[in-house]
Every structure is written in structure tokens, then in C-alpha cells.
């Protein structure tokens, strides 16, 4: 559809059918049948394509997303007439079937010219489309089914057992205790238990032993790391912009840091939500609350110089709307970007209303010191600023920058006059956020931090003139080098990427067919109309919306979140399509259980830890995961939970487990992203062939969630093991099983080093002798002793390996680069080969 403005001016009066003078047609007898026959299939009660409804007077006169289509008294100015009379195939209405005959056109024209009177008696009941779909009904807390004494530990089990009984199935027995410990430790912290933790648990037969473990794990600082990674999937977190330039985001980690801390301190989920959606708008917002808005900043940003900034901004808002819809509401709203959702009641108006929530924002960076940074910074700041000024003055940068700014402003205000400066402006807009605004701002009124951004931009790209003047070029180059050195020598404050309110942004509008250039009606920031209304409290809309997300009457958020936690604990959600609670998603396997969990979650103060504890304490969770051939016939997907599920570990946790088993793992929580070894040539695949500079020391051995995620060239170990691409909110990871994963675990230097370190550790920590050493190696990797057959097989491998090395002495120091006291080098090398096998076991990378 075209915009009305274009359409009216673009089309001449088309037909010369004589209009019956003055005689207005009778609506009910002559007009309504035309509309009913030709229009209301697509623009009627059942659907309103492009937001237009032509079977109801109020709605018809209001028009569609592009505005009014009937202008009473002015048929030739009415889009409706232009459409039904058009000669253009893809433009004329109705789009299929015979066109309106001349008589019908004449009647419509006469009716509109006579004022388009639509008698009230012909009006239909309007209003938003309701829905009977289960997920949109209020959450009520169902009664817990009665349960016998033989099985079950808490209400979860009562719901599970009831469903199993309906299907004539029985639950599985408890998993071996060592398996239970490894399972719950991996699920709550993403790390395997240490052999000492396993031994202590196995030795503790007192009641409450398991619960004490659970409480310990929920208090562990690694809890926040494990659940932060899950949330980062939804937040489409990455350490770079994405798209061609894919600039690193050196401060993205500050949001991750906040996230880990918020989860570790058990922040209630409602406040957690409000802080991320609109923390900056809270009265007396704390630094943490502002950092939390970094959630929105994880969108991709296209800094390719030729990109229209308005378009990229639109795409960013689309991404933010989609992310909120998936993360909290379990809705696949993206379809409604271009048209009303085909299956769910979400309309295009709903979609852009949701987008409007994020519209009046501006991206910014703020000082966000972590512990220990502020004091040193404060003490040295005056000195730093003085030295900085000194450098700039020494090279007379202010005068060069002033000249540059004048030229830049001229080019911004009068494009097309000078090709070189036009290019400089285009390039600058791509790299400097809000460039026009900053450059056109009165120089004297520019805050210091913004002025510094401009100076930095000038020094990195000084326009076309300076490179032609060697003396000036040298000054810029020297200043740049000296400033970089100075900044490196002084304490800095960590920065956080945040959003803030910006009332100067024009109102949001419906983009016709999802094209940002085709502006339809303006929309207010509101939740979808088919869900309970948002309370208008006088607060800014984004804050009111955040509160609405976690309002007791919102039917979706609590269900969606509980379902996802369940998915992480059981391998599949009660609603398997955890990203889609709409009509195209699957229905819940246990609707009452889901509602009970959602109600319990909300009524109990939105505590994630409490709900997670409830789940891992249940008998359903603690079942064996071994196959149940008897149940498979009735329930092939194990939706009814006649057993637990075996789950391959997430990419990051595979790395974590190998490092933990080998003793290499650095357990430091939080902080910057790291650069573990990655094969040469990977980073170079992207634009600009960026170099990957490996982290040194303990940094190299930090957990997988800290690995720098470069969007166009992500670390291969993460991608091989199905980490999301961080483009859209990822609600559930898939688990593939590929030969590249095998090669990765076998041959990646990170895992080979882990195998070697594991061997050294085993040899140092265990009493001499094959059996105790093998026991130790099994305890460290799979938290259990080997079976007799496994011992026998590994003993054979050990002998084979010694035989192979006897004929290949050169391989010995390569397999085992260090001496282990009291152990022959060749034996130690054979142990490295054995440990490599253990780190490749399916069981090692699986949570049983």
C-alpha cells in the first residue's frame, strides 16, 4: 500500500462516470452490500488487514494504519475511491476477483460526496479482539492433587504423578546419589562437583543432606554465573556491534557483571524486570538500576558508513520490541512488524505500541565504577586532566579541531557541496553515536565528557585536509599516541552502556508493511490490546510498562519465566516451545503445574532461587535419567517425566568442566571478557581482519561465559557447541551432535592442555598405582568410580599407549611437557592420553 499523500497527488481523477446529482444513496440498501460483498472478508470482524475495518461505521471512518480512507464529502480525496478505481494491478482493491462495476463505484462516490453518512443502526460492536487461548487467561492457583505416600516430595510431584497415573505410567527410581549431586551442581552452578564435595555428600547419610547441598549451591557465587548465561541468551548479549565493522564493545561486560550480582543476591524477579526495562526512570535511580538498562543496549548496531542512521535506529527498536516480547511474554511478535499476526491476536498496532515503549530513548555511556576503582580515579583525575590538556595544547590540537568542526558543521548543514567533507561526515556518523547532535551543539555548552568524545573522534579521523599537511598530520598522530599512553597510565572508571529517556524523539508510528520510511498512524506506548490494560500512574510510559510486565494480572510473564526455569532443569519446558506461548506454540504438558508454579512464583515474592529450590528438591527432578523402554511407547518425548533427561552441557559449561576437572579453572567471578586461544585465521574471516590477542595468565582459564563474543567471528568452540548467535533473544538452545564437536574436544589446544593438566593433577594428588589414579581421574571428570570393565579397558589403553610411546620417544615430551616427581615421563605421557579420552566421554559433557 502507498502512503495516502503520494496516492492522492499521484493519481488523476480516474473515471468519468456521471455522478447522480445530489441524490445520496441509501446506506443500508445500496452501500453496505457493496462493502460486505467486496471488502469485509479482509476488512471485517474476523480480520482487519492493514488495520482497516469496513463493516463498522466508527472503525471505517477512522481508517487503517496509513490513516483515513474515507473523507466525508470528498470522494476524490478518499483513498477508498483511489483504490477501487485504480488501473494498477497490485494496488487496486479488491485485490482478487472482479473489479467493482461502474455502478458500484458511482454509488460509493456519491455516498462519500454526500457526507459518507453511516447510520448508527448499522454500527457493529467494535473493540479489541479477545482470545480464548489458554496462555492469555488469568493465572489461577490450582489445587494440588492428592498424592499417596509412596512417591513424591513436594507439590510439583503431585502434579507430575497425577499425569503419569493418567497415562498408566510410574515414575523412575531415584538417580544414584553421586549422579544427583553432579546433576544439581551442574544445573545450579554450571560446574561439576569436586571429588571432595562428592565424597562429603556420599558420606552424609543424615536427613537433609541433599537440601544442605542445594542451599550451599544457591549461595555459591557461581550460581549467578550459570543463570546469568541463560539470561544473556535472552538478552542477546555480545561483546561487539555486529554487522560489517563489528566494533568491539569494551564495556558490554559491565551489564553482565550487574546481572551476575543481581542473580547472586537473589533480587526478586519483578524488580529485576523493572530495573532492566526502565531502571533509569525510577526515582533516585541507583547506579545499578541504570546499568541494568544495558539489557537494551545489546542490540546489533550497523556502523557501516553508508547506512542510513534512521533505518538502523528503526531496526534497533524492532529488535528491542521483539526481545521484550520473547523474553517476558513468550510472544513471537516479529510477524506483526509487517502485518497483523496471522494466528495470534497481536496486531500491527499492538506491535508498534510495544515498540513505542522503547522509542523515546537515547543510548549513552556512563561512569560505572566497580569496587576499588573510584578512589584511585578521584585522587588522580585532576592530574590526568591537566596532563591531557597539556598534550592537546602542546600539539595545538584545539585549533585544528575547531577548523575541523567548522567544516564538519558546514557539510552537515549543506550536504553535496564538497565530496570529501561529505564522506568525512558519513564516516563520522557511523562511528560517533549521535554525531550530528554533538557536532551542532554549541561548543561552550557541550559537557566535558561529550567534548572528549568529539576530540577522540577528531584524533582518530581528522578529515580530508590534515593528511595533506605533514606538519599537522604529525601533530594529530603524536597527540593521539601520547593520549593513548596517558590513558593507559592513569586509573579509569569502568563504563556502562545504558539507555536514558529522550523526550525530543518524535512519536512512534506504524511502519506500513514494516518499512520505516512509510509512516502510518502514530501510536502510544502500550502493551498489546488483547492483554490486561496497563495502569496509567502518571509515571513515564516505559516505567509503567515495566510494572505492567510483572503485574499480578499479566497472564504471561510468570508462566513464561517459570516454564524457562523448568526447561533448564528438565531439558524441556512444560510448554516445549518456550519462546512461543501463542496459538502456534505447543500447549503445556502440565497446564495446572505451570499455573501453580506461576502463582507460587508471584505470590511468594518473585524469588527465582526459591522456585529453583522447589524444582531441584522434587522427586521428579531427582529421578534416574536412564531410558524407560516401557514408557517410551506411550510418551516418546518424555513429556510426562517418567524419568529425568540426559542433557548435553552448554558450550560454555563444557569448557568450564574441562578446566575445572584439570584444576586450571580460574574461579574469579565477574569482570571483563577474555580471549582464550583460538585458531589463527578465525578472527581474520571478518571485516578488517581483526587480530585476536590471547589472554595471559589466569585470565586464559576463566569460565566460558566470559569468552569475548565477536558477533561476525565468534569463538569456534562456542559455535560448535550451539551457543546462540546473539542476534535475537534465544529462549532455548538446540543441541547438535557433529564431527566438528568431536574434533574440537579432541584437538583444540584448550582441551588438550586440560587433558595434560588433568594428568599432572591426578599423578600429583593420587597415591601411586594405576587403580587409585584411575579412580581419581574418574572422580574429577564424571564424579564416580570406574566400573570393573571400564578399569580393565583403561588399563589396556594404558598398556597400548606405553607400547606406542616406546616406539615413538619423541612424542613423550609433547604429550607431557613437564616432569612429575616420582613418575616416569613416559607413564605421565600415557596418562595424558588417558585423560584426553575421559574429557571426550559423552558422559563428561552430559548432565545425567
Amino acid at each position, binding site marked *: 500500500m502507498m502512503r495516502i499523500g503520494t496516492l492522492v497527488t499521484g493519481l488523476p481523477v480516474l473515471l468519468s462516470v456521471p455522478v447522480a446529482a445530489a441524490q445520496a444513496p441509501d446506506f443500508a440498501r445500496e452501500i453496505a452490500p457493496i462493502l460486505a460483498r467486496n471488502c469485509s472478508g479482509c476488512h471485517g470482524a474476523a480480520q482487519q488487514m492493514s488495520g482497516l475495518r469496513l463493516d463498522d461505521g466508527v472503525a471505517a471512518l477512522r481508517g487503517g494504519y496509513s490513516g483515513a480512507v474515507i473523507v466525508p464529502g470528498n470522494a476524490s480525496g478518499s483513498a477508498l475511491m483511489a483504490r477501487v478505481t485504480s488501473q494498477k494491478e497490485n494496488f487496486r482493491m479488491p485485490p482478487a476477483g472482479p473489479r467493482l462495476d461502474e455502478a458500484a463505484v458511482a454509488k460509493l462516490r456519491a455516498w462519500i460526496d454526500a457526507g459518507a453518512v453511516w447510520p448508527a443502526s448499522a454500527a457493529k460492536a467494535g473493540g479489541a479482539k479477545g482470545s480464548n487461548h489458554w496462555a492469555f487467561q488469568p493465572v489461577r492457583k490450582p489445587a494440588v492433587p492428592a498424592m499417596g505416600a509412596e512417591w513424591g516430595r513436594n507439590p510439583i510431584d503431585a502434579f507430575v504423578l497425577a499425569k503419569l497415573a493418567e497415562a498408566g505410567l510410574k515414575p523412575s527410581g531415584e538417580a544414584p546419589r553421586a549422579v544427583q549431586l553432579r546433576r544439581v551442581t551442574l544445573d545450579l552452578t554450571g560446574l561439576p562437583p569436586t571429588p571432595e564435595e562428592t565424597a562429603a555428600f556420599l558420606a552424609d547419610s543424615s536427613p537433609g543432606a541433599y537440601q544442605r547441598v542445594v542451599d550451599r549451591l544457591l549461595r555459591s557465587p557461581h550460581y549467578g554465573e550459570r543463570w546469568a548465561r541463560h539470561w544473556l541468551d535472552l538478552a542477546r548479549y555480545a561483546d561487539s556491534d555486529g*554487522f*560489517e565493522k563489528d566494533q568491539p564493545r569494551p564495556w558490554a561486560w559491565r551489564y553482565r557483571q550487574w546481572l551476575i550480582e543481581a542473580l547472586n543476591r537473589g533480587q526478586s524477579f519483578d524488580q529485576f524486570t523493572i530495573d532492566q526495562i526502565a531502571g533509569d526512570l525510577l526515582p533516585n535511580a541507583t547506579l545499578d538500576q541504570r546499568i541494568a538498562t544495558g539489557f537494551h543496549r545489546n542490540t546489533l548496531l*550497523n556502523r*557501516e*558508513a*553508508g*547506512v542510513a542512521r534512521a533505518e538502523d535506529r528503526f*531496526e534497533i527498536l524492532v529488535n528491542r520490541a521483539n526481545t521484550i516480547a520473547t523474553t517476558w511474554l513468550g510472544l513471537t511478535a516479529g*510477524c506483526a512488524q509487517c502485518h497483523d499476526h496471522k494466528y495470534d491476536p497481536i496486531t500491527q498496532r499492538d506491535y508498534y505500541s510495544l515498540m513505542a515503549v522503547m522509542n523515546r530513548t537515547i543510548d549513552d555511556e556512563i561512569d560505572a565504577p566497580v569496587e576499588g576503582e573510584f578512589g584511585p580515579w578521584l585522587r588522580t583525575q585532576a592530574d590526568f586532566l591537566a596532563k591531557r590538556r597539556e598534550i592537546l595544547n602542546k600539539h595545538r590540537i584545539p585549533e585544528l579541531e575547531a577548523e575541523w568542526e567548522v567544516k564538519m558543521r558546514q557539510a552537515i548543514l549543506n550536504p*553535496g557541496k564538497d*565530496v*570529501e567533507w*561529505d564522506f568525512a561526515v*558519513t564516516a563520522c556518523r557511523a562511528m560517533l553515536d549521535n554525531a550530528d547532535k554533538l557536532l551542532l551543539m554549541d561548543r561552550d555548552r557541550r559537557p566535558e565528557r561529550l567534548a572528549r568524545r568529539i576530540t577522540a573522534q577528531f584524533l582518530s579521523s581528522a578529515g*580530508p585536509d590534515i593528511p595533506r599537511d605533514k606538519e599537522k598530520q604529525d601533530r594529530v598522530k603524536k597527540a593521539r599516541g601520547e593520549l593513548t599512553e596517558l590513558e593507559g597510565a592513569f586509573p579509569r572508571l569502568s563504563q556502562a552502556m545504558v539507555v536514558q529517556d529522550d523526550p525530543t524523539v518524535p512519536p512512534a508510528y506504524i511502519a506500513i508493511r514494516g518499512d520505516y520510511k512509510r509512516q502510518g498512524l502514530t501510536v502510544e506506548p502500550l502493551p498489546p490490546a488483547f492483554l490486561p490494560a496497563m495502569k496509567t500512574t502518571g509515571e513515564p510510559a516505559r516505567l509503567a510498562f515495566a510494572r505492567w510486565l510483572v503485574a499480578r494480572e499479566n497472564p504471561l510473564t510468570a508462566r513464561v519465566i517459570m516454564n524457562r526455569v523448568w526447561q533448564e532443569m528438565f531439558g524441556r519446558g512444560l510448554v516445549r516451545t518456550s519462546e*512461543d506461548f*501463542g496459538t*502456534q506454540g505447543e500447549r503445556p504438558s502440565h497446564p495446572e503445574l505451570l499455573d501453580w508454579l506461576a502463582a507460587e512464583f508471584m505470590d511468594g515474592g518473585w524469588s527465582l532461587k526459591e522456585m529453583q529450590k522447589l524444582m531441584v528438591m522434587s522427586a521428579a527432578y531427582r529421578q534416574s*535419567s536412564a531410558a524407560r523402554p516401557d514408557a517410551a511407547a506411550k510418551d516418546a518425548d518424555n513429556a510426562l517425566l517418567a524419568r529425568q533427561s*540426559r542433557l548435553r552441557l552448554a558450550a560454555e559449561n563444557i569448557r568450564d568442566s574441562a578446566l575445572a576437572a584439570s584444576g586450571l579453572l580460574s574461579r574469579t567471578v565477574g569482570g571483563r571478557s577474555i580471549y582464550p586461544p583460538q*585458531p589463527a585465521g578465525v578472527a581474520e*574471516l*571478518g*571485516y578488517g*581482519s581483526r587480530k585476536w590477542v590471547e589472554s595471559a595468565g589466569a585470565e586464559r582459564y576463566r569460565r566460558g561465559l566470559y569468552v569475548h563474543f565477536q558477533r*561476525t*567471528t565468534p569463538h569456534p568452540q562456542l*559455535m*560448535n557447541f550451539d551457543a546462540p*548467535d546473539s*542476534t535475537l533473544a534465544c529462549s532455548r538452545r538446540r543441541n*547438535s*551432535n557433529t*564431527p*566438528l564437536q*568431536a*574434533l574440537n574436544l*579432541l*584437538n583444540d589446544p584448550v582441551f588438550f592442555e586440560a587433558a595434560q593438566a588433568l594428568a599432572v593433577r591426578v599423578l600429583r594428588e593420587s597415591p601411586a598405582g594405576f587403580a587409585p589414579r584411575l579412580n581419581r581421574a574418574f572422580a574429577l571428570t564424571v564424579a564416580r568410580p570406574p566400573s570393573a*570393565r*571400564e578399569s580393565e*579397558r*583403561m588399563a*589396556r*589403553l594404558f598398556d*597400548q*599407549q606405553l*607400547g*606406542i610411546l616406546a616406539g*615413538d620417544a619423541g*612424542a*613423550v*615430551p*609433547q*604429550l607431557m611437557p613437564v616432569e612429575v616427581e616420582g613418575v616416569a615421563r613416559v607413564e605421565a605421557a600415557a596418562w595424558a*592420553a588417558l585423560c584426553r*579420552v575421559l574429557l*571426550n*566421554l*559423552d558422559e563428561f559433557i552430559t548432565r545425567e
Partner: protein
Amino acid sequence: MNVRQYLELTNRRRFLGRVAGGIGAMALGDLLAADTNPLAARKGHFTGKAKSVIFMFMEGGPSQMDLFDPKPGLQKWHGQALPDSFTRDLKLAFIKPSAAVLASPRVFKPHGQSGTQFSDFIPHTASCADDICLVRSMSTEAFNHHPGQLLLFTGSTQIGRPTMGAWTVYGLGSESSNLPGFAVLTSGAGTSGGATNFSSGFLPSTFQGTPLRGSGDPILYLANPPGVSGLTQRAGLDALRDLNEEHHAAVGDMEIASRMASYELAYRMQSAGPELADFSGESRETLDLYGVNDETSRPFATNCLLARRMVERGVRFILLMHASWDDHVQLNRKLKRNCDITDRPTAALLKDLKRRGLLDSTLVVWGGEFGRTPMQEVRNTQEADNAGRDHHPNAYSMWLAGGGIKGGQVIGKTDDLGFNVVEDPMTVHDLQATILNQLGFDHTRLTYRHMGRDFRLTDVHGEVVRKMIA
């Protein structure tokens, strides 16, 4: 211990035997059968002419009016700005509509029986004129690199959807059981799209492109770590299999069986990868034909030869990327350089495929994400021959050969100045639909359900261009 002793040892090895209820060596082979192996070869909607695709992606946007689409009409306007009416609808990344016209200094001549015109920069490609179907009427919606590349490969300008190669192996699997089904070869600089040009998007990662590398391991992590000999690797894998088998017997999860199969495939890749890259069996004549020993063309020539060898070994989709043709400035110098690198190997690939009888079943596609403007871009007014061209999405050229495509013809026409398509317009989605058609797919039915919706490569667009098909 020598190899014979080792083999004797391993033959006595079956400590679990088949009685343990685990899956033995036979069952392991079966795992690669269609049910469990997502890469098993399978049929499309119908039998396609093409079994493999070599997509020669010329990143950055080669200049069509200096290579494929002669525009003598530009001479008249050379050095002048065009009237507003010509340039009103242009989407320009860098230059303004008032930029001066740049006529091409290239000489075009007709080639082959078909008489298709090619520029003097690509004589070797021109010598294949009768096998080439040249499309002069391509257009795209994106006028910046990454969105353009995404549109070309995924049908959408936003990151996140599966790429053409991923869709292909998702649909057809692979004929090769020891090489990746979708392989990626690169030369020159990095590309704007990076890994997003061969990502599996929301399809399972099994279908993502595997980069084969010019230096180091041909496939990531392919080589054993230092000190791990072939014997050590095999001994370790045998033990690993037995332990996994033991665990499979205990917990009965098919994922374990599938993982065991993956390890065996990985092991075969370890020998197939180096064998693929070993050119010692290629004749001197073949190496010279490609220009493998020529300093300028070596990396690209090597990739072209690898592509042919992969086609022979059943690899389904080969993405061969060369960057970059993004000649905003110094067009004459930079374009010549890229042509010197790529022209001979490109033609050699076509000729070599043809003489081996592989061209009929191999679809070769050549082109970039968009074309370049008839107007010039100048970033340094004081440098001689600084002129280049900006991005031009409205009209550009690509070519296809083999795989059931009718060679020796030109599809489409642009206006006298090369601004717009005036005959047989062809969009990126039409190209995708046609490629899928040649592989045996109705592009509207090759779908994958994600986030509540059926997605396809061509989004909601695309029509097969019947004229192109033999």
C-alpha cells in the same frame, strides 16, 4: 610397536563384544544411515539438474559496467553531473546524486558463438562465453555490504536466518561421508558478513558452513595435537568408543550412539581433509590451467581447484569468497588487480569441470551483493585516477553456468546509462528460487518452523527464472 602389531592388538580388542547389548561396529555403520544422520544424502522435491553448487562470491560488489555490461552511453556524460530526473530514486551509500558520471575506459568485445560482450579485464572468463548465462538485470534492496550479503545469502537483510548453503544441505544432505557438506573457502581480505555468510541461522548447526583454510589445518581442529600420533589417536578413539558403548548400554540414550558416529566421522575427516588438499595427483597442465603456481593467482587458484576436488568428493555446497571488490576509489587499478587474481582460475574451474563431465551437475554462480554506480566517487581530489564507484543496488550483473543452466545467453537489459533494469528484472530472491530449483526444490516448500512461523530462503518472494534453464 609397528602398525601390524597394533592392528593385531586392536583386533583382539573387542572386550565388550556384541554380547554386552551395546551397539557394535555394524550398528555404528548404520548410524550414518538416513534416520540418524542429518547429513545423509536425500532427494529434493524433484530430481534437480545440479548436485552441487559452487557459489563464487565476489565480496564488495564488482563493477558491472567495467566487466559485463558495456555502457557507451556514459561517454556523453563523462565528468558531468546528471539531471536530477536520472538520479532521483537512487539509494547511495556515500556519494551525492550530483556526482559526476564516470565512463568506463574498458574495451568490450563479443565472444564465442553467442557473441556475449565481456570486458578486456576478463579474457579467460570471456573464453567460456558459451557456457555462461550472463544476467545483466540483477537488482537488490540493500545498498550496504552486510545487509546486502545477508539478503543474498539468507533472503533477509537482518542477521539470524539460515544461509543458502545451510538450506541446501538441510534439504539435500551431502554425498560425502567424510567431508563437510557445506564448505567455505576464502581468499583476499575478510568479508563484511564474516561467518554470517555461511551460518545455519536457526537451522541446526549441523548445516552450517565449515571454513576450509588455506594455511594451518584445512578444517579447524583437524590435526592431532603435538605428540598424538595416528596410533595414539586410534587407540584413544577405540577406548573412547568402548567406554561410550558401555555407558550407552547402561542408560540407553541414542544421543550416545550418535556421538560415537560423530567421532568416527571426525576420524575419517582427519584423513580426508589432508587428502583433499594434496595436489600431488594433479597434472602439471591442470595446475597451470588454474594458475596454482602463479604468485598473483595462487590463493584463489588453490581454492578453485579445491572446489573442483570437493565436487568430485560429493561436497554439496561450496562457498568460495574473494574480498574485496569494493572499489570506491582507484577503480582502474584495483579492479585490474582483482581480475588478474581471479579471471584465469575462474575460467579454469569451468573448463576443468566441463572436461571431466561435472559441469552439467555442478551449478556455478559468480557475483557480488550489488553493483557499482555509473557516477564516480572521489575521496581525494588531488590524486590522479582516484575515481571509483559507489554501491549500486538497482542494476548489476551476475553469471551462472552449469547445473542445467542454459549457457551462451544474456538475460535482461539495463538502460543506456546503467541506472535501472529495463528488461527481465531479476531480484536476489529470484536468483535464490532458481538456484533451489536447479537443486530440485520448490523454493516455497523448502521451509523450517521457527518462532511459530515457517521460514524459507526466499522469504515471501522469488520466482524461478525459466529463461535461464536449459
